[in-house]
């Protein structure tokens, strides 16, 4: 199994049964990007489901089509998601996503890394 992947949107790391996804600074996600983001995560996971920690502080913008894809197709093989956010921008982005796109997996936002890991540890 691979332990590290990087594409033009994010870097992925697999550690202690958690998938860490860190989006690059200043990126904008459209449908094409969302598909690539999910594809690479699934390549790393090799068919197994894991909790995912998503550091979205770098995301500048994401359009509706990408949000919809991430919430539906993008939710497979994920046990739970913890977002790392930084108010106000990525904080409101995650709040909007959770309210409007409603991903079908347990999802919560955190500003502190350790708290996010603590939340995910219940799903390992």
């Amino acid at each position, binding site marked *: 199994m691979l332990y590290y992947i990087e594409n033009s949107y994010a870097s992925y790391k697999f550690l202690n049964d958690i998938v860490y996804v860190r989006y690059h600074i200043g990126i904008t996600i459209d449908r094409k990007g969302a598909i690539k983001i999910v594809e690479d995560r699934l390549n790393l996971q090799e068919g197994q489901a894991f909790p995912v920690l998503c550091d979205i502080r770098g995301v500048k913008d994401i359009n509706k089509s990408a949000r919809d894809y991430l919430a539906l197709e993008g939710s*497979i093989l994920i046990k739970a998601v913890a977002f790392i956010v930084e108010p106000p*921008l990525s904080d409101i982005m995650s709040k*909007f996503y959770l309210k409007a796109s409603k991903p079908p997996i347990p999802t919560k936002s955190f500003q502190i890394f350790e708290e996010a890991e603590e939340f995910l540890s219940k799903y390992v």
Partner: protein
Amino acid sequence: MSQSKKKRLTQIRNMLLEMGSGNFFYRVERSVKNDNMESLVMALNMMAEEIEAAMVHQGYVNANQTIKHIVLMSFIIDYQGCVKEVNQQTCSVLSYLCEDILGQPFNSFLDKTSSKKWQKSFKTLQNKEFHDTSMELTFMTKEGLLIPSACYITTYLKDIDVASKMLLTVVKHSKNDIELEFDQKQNIVKLKNIPKEGLSPSYQIPKKQKIRLSYEDIAKIREARDILINNLENDFPSIKDFALQIGTNTFKLKYGFKELYGISVYKFLKNERLRKAKMLVQYGDRSFKSIAHMTGFKSVPHFSRTFKKQFGYTPTELRKRSSSDDK
């Protein structure tokens, strides 16, 4: 107040005015800042996107007619990339005078990123004859609001005598006064043409009267959707039991679900099961038996059959194609 803050506030105000008058296709330009105003701008843009999508969906759900596509903007662009002709609506959408658009380079009406994208593709487009294509471009109004749009571009057969031109069209779904008036006019004409005694009260009501769903009804139906999505692998109870489970009745569930999501409960469930199954087939090596089980299909043949009917290819074909792509 700083100049940039003032400018951003003005744009938010303009955007709200546009939304207030029923135009949901505008967006406020984003800055690199991470402050409260920027987060407001982001939420406003996302909200406009959601409303824009919901309006198309509404059009397709309530009325017994197809979605109305409206040509919002159309440009004729010459071989140098300048605007030769433009329709009247473009001027009002972009808030420019017609004479300020004509003769100007087309990319001066785009935002920075799109302008670069356009310049790049324009060269290839010029060499293409009798060709149709589409691309995403973001327009910028005189006031600085953005309009992300799918553009359809047509190039024609080259004529030796006439310099080559191309047509660029932007289609949107929008509430349009002209159309509304046209519909009303049609209804009035219809009413006029029938004899007075035939004018029963029932005629004045649209053929299919809409049932009003209360806020609670809508909340319950939303809950139904969430339950379905979270239980794709489980057997679906009868629609009657399902309605009871969410605290409503069969009629309201069936009618309301169709009204809200534009699709029946069963079809929705099938689509979502297949959506998940497709991802599992495409990006993994789970057996089809396990995938069928995870997505609520009774057997592999049943799964394969339904899959093929939906996508036009079997799970085996998709898996083969995906694994050969990986190599």
